[in-house]
């Protein structure tokens, strides 16, 4: 993102796969963090802490990223963002996205965790087309 400062926008969508049992609570937890103003720090923390996503872990990461324990825990327990995560899952289905990570770069699908050079090539191409 820094490399393409101002020229690229990143939109994150949740697609917790059914085979990853703890991915959905993690996605909901990230949205709780977002509601409390710390989405990206918590998001980064989750990726750095894979795959330890039991409830106590999620709360501990929240506290460690500066979130207040009580409202975060309540949000998580109430599953306040369950439907929002589900909406992303439904949207992925409608778009034919079946695996993670999948990127749509100006609508062009780019599937899998690929080397950074491949990303650069596709982004540079999209920038050329957009000019």
């Amino acid at each position: 993102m820094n490399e393409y400062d101002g020229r690229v926008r990143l939109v994150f969508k949740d697609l917790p796969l059914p085979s990853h049992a703890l991915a959905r609570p993690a996605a909901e937890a990230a949205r709780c963090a977002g509601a409390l103003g710390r989405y990206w720090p918590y998001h980064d923390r989750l990726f750095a802490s894979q795959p330890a996503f039991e409830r106590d872990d999620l709360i501990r990461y929240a506290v460690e990223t500066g979130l207040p324990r009580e409202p975060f825990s309540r949000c998580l327990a109430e599953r306040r963002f369950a439907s929002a995560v589900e909406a992303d899952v439904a949207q992925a289905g409608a778009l034919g996205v079946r695996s993670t990570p999948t990127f749509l770069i100006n609508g062009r699908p780019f599937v899998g965790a690929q080397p950074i050079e491949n990303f650069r090539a596709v982004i540079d191409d999209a920038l050329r087309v957009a000019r």
Partner: protein
Amino acid sequence: MNRVRITPTRWPRVYTFWTMCLLALLPIVAGGAGLAGGARAQAPPESGTDPGMIKGPADAPVTIVEFSDYQ
């Protein structure tokens, strides 16, 4: 030559047959047009996303929509 003559008495029957065919096909044709229209009108994938889950300017020439899970 055997010619089928549409007599005044057959007209209503022929007319009714083709009308029924058209009426039967109408929902299929209309449904297909609706699907095509729906696909064309599909909202961009970034629509409806919580603004807190977006990084970068709204007018950036490139938008990357990432579908991912944490596990």
